């Protein structure tokens, strides 16, 4: 059975991206008499390059002996489990981006900072809570004032 390694996962993901982009490049306007090379040529050259390099990475990955490892499904599950903090941070950032237009900069930023600081620092002592809340509120307001009044940049 095929053992999933970093290089193999990368190469397969890249081949997939190349395939999708190649199909999408079919929608680009074709060459005309005054644009003989067309707009699809440059990205297609790059797609061919990426595709070839991905295949080379894939082939090379089979030339190196890799130790027997569990199946791909188990490996992916383990990978996600060992990176729960990172995934939670990504999730919080996504939530932050989604909430910004809804609740505004100050509320969304304080929410993001409190949640992510709690995630990374922990909330097991009163001192940590104090640091978390004071830092989140102060920073959100200071940045707002600097951008809004110092740099004339509107924040949502």
């Amino acid at each position, binding site marked *: 059975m095929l053992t999933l390694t970093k290089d193999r996962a990368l190469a397969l993901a*890249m081949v997939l991206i190349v395939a999708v982009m190649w199909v999408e490049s079919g929608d680009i306007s074709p060459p005309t008499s005054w644009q003989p090379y067309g707009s699809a040529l440059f*990205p297609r050259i790059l797609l061919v390059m990426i595709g070839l390099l991905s295949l080379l990475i894939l082939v090379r990955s089979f030339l190196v002996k890799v130790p027997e490892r569990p199946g791909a499904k188990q490996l992916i599950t383990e990978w996600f489990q060992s990176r729960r903090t990172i995934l939670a941070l990504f999730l919080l*950032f996504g939530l932050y981006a989604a909430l910004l237009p809804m609740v505004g900069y100050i509320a969304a930023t304080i929410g993001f900072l409190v949640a992510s600081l709690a995630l990374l620092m922990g909330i097991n002592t009163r001192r940590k809570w104090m640091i978390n809340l004071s830092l989140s509120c102060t920073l959100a307001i200071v940045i707002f004032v600097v951008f809004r009044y110092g740099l004339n940049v509107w924040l949502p």
Partner: protein
Amino acid sequence: MTNFFLQALAEVGTPSVLGLIVIGVLFGIIGGSIPGFTVTMAILVVFPFTFAMDPVSGISLMVGVFVGGYSGGIVSGVMLGIPGTPSSITTVYDGYPMAQKGEPGRALGIGVASSFLGTIISVAVLVFFGPLIASFSMNFRPWEITALIVFALTLVAGLSSGALLKGLMAAALGLLITTVGYDRNSNLRFDFGLPALGSGFEILPVMIGIFAFSQLLGNIEKLKDEDSEAKKIDTNVTIPYGQILKDMAGQKLNTLRSSLIGSLVGALPGTGGTVANFLSYDQAKKFSRHPEEFGTGTPSGIVASEASNSAVAGGAFVPTLALGIPGDLPMAIMMGVLILHGITPGPMMFEQNPVLVGAIYASLLIGAVVMVLCNLLLVRWFAKISLIPQQILVPVVLMLCAIGAYALNNNLFDIWVLFFFGVIGYLLWKAAVPLTPLILGVVLGNNLERQLFRALELNESWLTFLTRPLSALFLALAVASILFSLYQDRKIQRIKNAALRENA
């Protein structure tokens, strides 16, 4: 040029711009002194604050961060024994032992003085070679520019230690990212039915996403493996000025050699402070009468390390300003700053924006002086700040990145772009794909496509790239850089295999 320089000096000398340089230097030193934060991250965080500024103010602030950042590694290197930036690794070799012997002030003073001299010498190199290379490259036509960009990309990809294929793939991926949206002929490409993709991706959110997420989340991952206990350090440092003057008087040749190595290495694509650091440390050791003292706390080691990594600042500006091709990551971002302010770096910049070029020279010089003063007066504060834990730093920087991406066009879509490329950057980093070629591809993509097709419109034969001497030379160098990298990879693999066989 002297007139323009004096005009630029007058503009940079105003209290508001001087204040910005001081803020930039302070932030750069803080960024450089926090282990795992890096100069690049400091530049990325400050970048959004320049959006509303005029070009001279914005560039001065960024140059301040640049100068401060390259010197910031001294503080954590000497006080904690941890290099604040990768470009100050060899500072630790002698700075930390000297501090351990009870002379932290002497180590810091020598480091700061060397940084200052390194920056000044590199500015002299920039002032001399910048216009020279720019005037030579004025003769470049689209064929030469295309070939030069290809060479820069292959060189950077080839220098991605042991990952040539991935480096080349990353560069091509970076170029591909720039093809999204309307092209030069107003044809829409890769919009996937999303109207927001019509105008393509802004460089800034893409760069921040790819670099900042991978770096910050990588720092979080590393925390698990390291002792998270805060180090207790003695920040009560006194600088022995007389001793430092005596030390530096005996290091004239070492300072000059290391600064020139730093300037030269900085001017080469894909190298940067880390390479300069090791190279000049190695040279200083070879030329020294007492090589056995290196690593035990000798002033020569600190001088070699700090003069060279600070000299990268001026050297790295040479290809960026003269050719429009950034050599490393911080410079790619600096180029983004210039583009954002409507200035296209390249040979024409010296003719079209001489005052701005002069402002860069002046900011570098003033930044160097400010850096010395800040480092000597505020060293104990920097030492304390360098202990800020990553658990606090990461959420704050992520928030600043989001606001920076938004503030670019007051567009929430840019925060999603940042997020998307953050995920991509993190996954690529986990797959050991070098990210510098990717970011360089993003910065150079539009220009490469424009020059390539301009060349083909002027002469439809692809062979012209090989019949024009300079273009052929650059392409030959591109091929040579790939072959050399392959040879190096094989050599490393052979050594690894031999070691494995020996162990077996």
